[in-house]
């Protein structure tokens, strides 16, 4: 177990470090950010002066070295626009993103697992067919468009819910439903197919042959076996969920990391972009780490080894 934790922690550090390095060079190679946020009529001398101040005129490896040195201490520099600490700005937005992502995750698990189990249990019934059709459509809907439709329906036509902004539970409903839709479809479909797989297994036949009633076959036996692949998929999909959160935050003007990151990208405010990349890569790696531990917990073949 210790072995595993050490190994995975090293992996997280390497992954985050490489991700930051890649983005750092991509940004620097794509051009000088100075010119982009100064007015177009700024003179050459003034631009040079700014480059001097911000340190963009030094060789790339020096800048990189400095960046790494500071980043290790948790310093990603200041926002080129507001001058505030880049990491601080990102961290301040983090709770909002967590709220959105986790409520979406919660909604999707709450709906998809029972739905998938039921569809598998009632295979080929009308309920199953409708569920499968719904998942196919759910996976093809672009989330930003679904967001627009929901805004139009609930905020514009019926004025039931606020269309944008954050701060309350009511504000959370539309964005989290939007974000959850894709995951609901995907998890339902996956739960269903995994359950069908498991229900065909020899050990289910064994349980059946010893007189286990159908209900406990499905709920007690097959579900526990299915949880292993389901947890793996959910962990893998958290990245998609975080990515989707970025888009959804823009649609609903949700004050999260994603929106900040996108605005900074548009403004070329690169310290914030780097801090955002750091946070997202870090969180994502940690989540995968936790998923691996959970996975070992439900799978005795790994635990006992």
């Amino acid at each position, binding site marked *: 177990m210790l*072995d*595993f934790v*050490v*190994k995975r922690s090293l992996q997280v550090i390497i992954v985050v470090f490489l991700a930051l390095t890649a983005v750092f060079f991509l940004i620097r190679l794509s051009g000088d950010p100075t010119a982009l946020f100064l007015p177009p009529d700024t003179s050459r001398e003034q631009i040079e002066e700014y480059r001097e101040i911000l340190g963009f005129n030094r060789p790339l490896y020096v800048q990189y070295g400095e960046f790494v040195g500071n980043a290790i201490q948790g310093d990603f520099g200041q926002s080129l626009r507001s001058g505030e600490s880049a990491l601080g700005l990102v961290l301040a937005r983090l709770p909002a993103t967590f709220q959105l992502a986790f409520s979406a995750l919660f909604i999707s698990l709450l709906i998809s697992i029972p739905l998938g189990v039921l569809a598998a249990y009632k295979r080929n019934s009308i309920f199953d067919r409708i569920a499968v059709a719904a998942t196919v459509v759910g996976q093809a809907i672009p989330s930003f468009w679904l967001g627009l439709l929901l805004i139009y329906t609930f905020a514009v036509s019926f004025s039931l819910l606020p269309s944008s902004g954050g701060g309350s539970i009511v504000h959370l409903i539309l964005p989290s439903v939007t974000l959850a839709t894709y995951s609901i479809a995907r998890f339902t479909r996956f739960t269903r197919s995994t359950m069908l797989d498991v229900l065909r297994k020899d050990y289910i036949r064994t349980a059946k042959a010893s007189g286990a009633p159908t209900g406990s076959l499905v709920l007690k036996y097959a579900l526990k076996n299915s949880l292993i692949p389901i947890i793996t998929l959910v962990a893998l999909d958290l990245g998609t969920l975080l990515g989707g959160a970025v888009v959804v935050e823009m649609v609903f003007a949700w004050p999260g990391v994603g929106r900040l990151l996108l605005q900074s990208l548009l403004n070329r405010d690169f310290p914030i972009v780097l801090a955002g990349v750091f946070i997202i890569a870090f969180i994502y790696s940690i989540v995968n780490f936790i998923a691996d531990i959970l996975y070992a917990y439900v799978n005795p073949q790994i635990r006992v080894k």
Partner: protein
Amino acid sequence: MSKERLLSVSGLKKYFEISQGMFKPKIVVKAVDDVSFDIYKGETFALVGESGCGKSTTGRTILKLTEPTAGEVLFKEQNIAKLSYETMRKLRSQMQMVFQDPYASLNPKKTIQQILMEPLNVHKKFEPHERLNKIIDILKVVGLSEAHLHRYPHEFSGGQRQRIGIARAVILNPDFIVADEPVSALDVSVQSQVINLMLEIQKKLQLTYLFISHDLSVIQHMTDRVAVMYLGRIVEIANTEELFASPKHPYTQALLSAVPISHPKEKRERIVLEGDVPSPANPPSGCTFHPRCRFASDICKQIAPSAVAFSDTHMATCHLYNLEGEKK
């Protein structure tokens, strides 16, 4: 023995290393541990043993389908254990293999013609325009026909697929064939057809077989000499008739007695072995069979026995006979 030696294996070892993680030592699985035997021209030499005893790995290591960890394999008195892929590749036209699972060993995307053409192309055997006729000939030898040329493996039954596998092995006219459980995936009535085919082409093409199987009745029927393996080592080698008539090693005795009777009226004294085969990653000390052996004594737990010869053709590795020898 005036027979000509075709293959000689000495001190062959194949160890697999399994990584356990960063801070733990690697587990070494001794799949084949110091195996030696000779195979003579024209004979059928059998390796028999239960699953995990290393018989298949021995066969594959001899053909260099996995690299040996140590030891020598002399084929026609040339040591092939250290040959490069390329040099070995050219030698392969003389030594071929028949696999257990005839479906998995045929590329599902290739027609029978393509499958059988490949060895001929690779080794540039026969003139290009003759090759197709050669393929049709060999198909007839194994009991199939020209009509099957353009079919894919999935269109055949298990027995037919094994015929194709055999055709692929013999089309280059090799001297030596390793047959790894060639009939154990087949039904009884098909099994006998394939055994007959193998016996027939052996006579026709003067083949030498290394026949790997767990099925003692098949071994008794079609092989000349047998080596019994247990946990990566050979415990007994003898002529087939000799081995079945008077097995010496306690494991061989138990193995032979475990075979189901062939007639309900037959009465057989059965030696039922206690427990399971230990893991080759952590074999018992001394004689690896001692925890299950009914004759085990103290020496068996400490010292690995050496081979005892009962005749020119029969030897076993067991302390039982060493001790008796000393007493005498």
